[in-house]
């Protein structure tokens, strides 16, 4: 089977369900997207929309009770759903890697940085300890850590949060993965450090030509990092497109609501009320009749009682809404 040049991750109709006493929690209800080499896809949504579970589902790291389903889940043409756990562990850390939200607790306190870095490489490649050590130093320097060689002897508790996150990034890159998944990598960090880490990720992506999936709830991060955006709500992707498209012309009422919630310097007048989206996210236990956003949508109509179709608005541009794009009132011009 001939593969297109470059790498890609293809996801079609991914679902994650968790059986509870009260019923089945459908946390991810059939999402589809694609990430290509050298591209950053931002999955943005509020807490509980299923974005973290999506990333765990891709890596095969879901909790034991959760059930993953997908029509298609391929990485570089390899069907991830068909892999055994052992084969999947070969893929993890090697072709796809992940960094998490809490750098303070994501490193084992009992072992040195060097030990944990080298271990990531030696698990997948037959290299000597010296070679592993050299690669570790190389990557530590790449992520902006000075005096890398002496850092190897240090323990995680001796580093600050920002430094630990850099170590996590270096550790993820030890085998040169094609795909890097970042689950809210800067949320737990100081604002100044946030910018540095994002900048670092951008640089690394360019240098190593990686694909990045960046999961976040922060639209500012999206604006800075995304080539393409997927907006998630209640376990579904409600809108996708390039960053420019989604920001300039948001086509889903939820996306619009989100954008109206944030003050934009230069646009939002002083004293002006920020928008808010009334209502709460519906329970994801059991089936949801119709559009999940309907009970909070200012444009809801009778047609919203049945599941809205995914409208194709162009290459890579999708909206899950019954309304015609032109039917929405214009957003205030910049």
């Amino acid at each position: 089977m001939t593969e297109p040049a470059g790498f890609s991750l293809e996801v079609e109709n991914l679902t994650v369900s968790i059986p509870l006493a009260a019923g089945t929690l459908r946390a991810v209800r059939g999402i589809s997207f694609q990430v290509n080499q050298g591209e950053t896809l931002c999955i943005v949504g509020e807490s509980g929309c299923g974005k973290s579970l999506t990333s765990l589902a891709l890596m095969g790291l879901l909790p034991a009770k959760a059930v993953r389903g997908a029509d298609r889940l391929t990485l570089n043409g390899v069907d991830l759903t068909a892999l055994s756990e052992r084969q999947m562990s070969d893929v993890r850390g090697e072709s796809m890697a992940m960094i998490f939200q809490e750098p303070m607790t994501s490193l084992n306190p009992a072992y040195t940085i060097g030990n944990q870095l080298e271990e990531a490489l030696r698990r997948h490649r037959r290299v000597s300890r010296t070679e592993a050590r050299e690669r570790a130093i190389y990557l530590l320097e790449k992520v902006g850590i000075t005096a890398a060689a002496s850092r190897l002897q240090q323990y995680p508790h001796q580093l600050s949060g920002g430094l630990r996150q850099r170590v996590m990034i270096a550790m993820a890159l030890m085998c040169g993965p094609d795909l890097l998944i970042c689950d809210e990598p800067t949320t737990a960090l100081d604002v100044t450090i946030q910018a540095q880490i994002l900048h670092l990720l951008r640089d690394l992506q360019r240098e190593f030509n990686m694909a990045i999936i960046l999961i976040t709830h922060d639209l500012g991060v999206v604006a800075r990092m995304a080539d393409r955006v997927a907006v998630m709500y209640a376990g579904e992707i409600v809108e996708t497109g390039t960053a420019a498209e989604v920001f300039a012309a948001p086509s889903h009422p939820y996306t619009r609501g989100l954008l109206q919630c944030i003050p934009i310097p230069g646009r939002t007048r002083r004293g002006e009320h920020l928008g808010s989206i009334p209502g709460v996210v519906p329970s994801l236990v059991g089936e949801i009749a119709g559009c999940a956003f309907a009970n909070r949508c200012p444009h809801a109509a009778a047609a919203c009682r049945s599941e809205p179709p995914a409208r194709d608005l162009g290459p890579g541009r999708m909206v899950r809404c019954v309304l015609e794009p032109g039917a929405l009132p214009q957003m205030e011009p910049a």
Partner: protein
Amino acid sequence: MLVYTAKRIVLAILVALTISMLVFSLLYLSGDPATALAGESATSADIEKIRHAYGFDRPVWVQYLSWLANAAQGEFGNSLYFRLPVWDLILERLPTTMTLGVSAMSFAIVLAIPLGVLAAMFPNSLIDRAALFMAVVGQAMPSFWFALMLIVLFAFTWPVLPASGSDTWRHFVLPTIVLGYYATPAFMRLTRTGMLDVLSSDYIRTARAKGLRPWTVLFKHALRNAIIPVVSLAAVQFGFMLGGSVIIETVFALHGAGFLAWESISRSDFPTVQAILLLFSLLYIVLTFVADLLNAWLDPRIRVG
């Protein structure tokens, strides 16, 4: 780490001194020790003679200090019953108790830790419930009764093991099982809780995300962190075992320090009783000190600071 050690040493010494005072004052619980020593049919002249001979006529704190000074040199006087130096008596019996303690501890660890790990890996499964059941049974089972039942089973019904004495290794099998089983529940629960905590931690998620093999995640990453509190517990449990050895050794007539303690207590052999009490307490203090150090050394956050 150095400061930590120094603090611990000072604490240990203070505790040891306090215990020594308590042990020393045990003699005075019955009132006048000279009267107690002299016996029922003694005249007041006899009592005075004994009082002077043993130095009970000196001020209390002088008696304590001289007792302490002697104790530090291993000089506890003679046993009232055997008329032999107490220290020699104890030294003769101590190896038996130590053997029992070490083998019981090993039994407990070999049984409890794998069970605890398995129970944590498969929570609410059959093995988890079995492990917890075993722990509850172990906590509810009086050790002396368990000992007697085992004797009935293995020394009488199927005579494969001796019921009493301490000559061969066979004599240690049943005592080891009883004493070891006594300590197993605590180890199992601690390992299980510790592993459950650790297995749900973020760094284990990271380890899995790196693609590490399950065994590596379990042993190199998880157990290494979960084992730290178990080390402290091992010292505490060994201390309890020393106490429990009194019962076990007595039931099995194992000639160890615990049996000697009980015999001496029954015979009001004060010097021996005091010496053994002091010894067991000191052993416990030393063990907890070592466990604290090990604890600190195992956790880089304390070791490196």
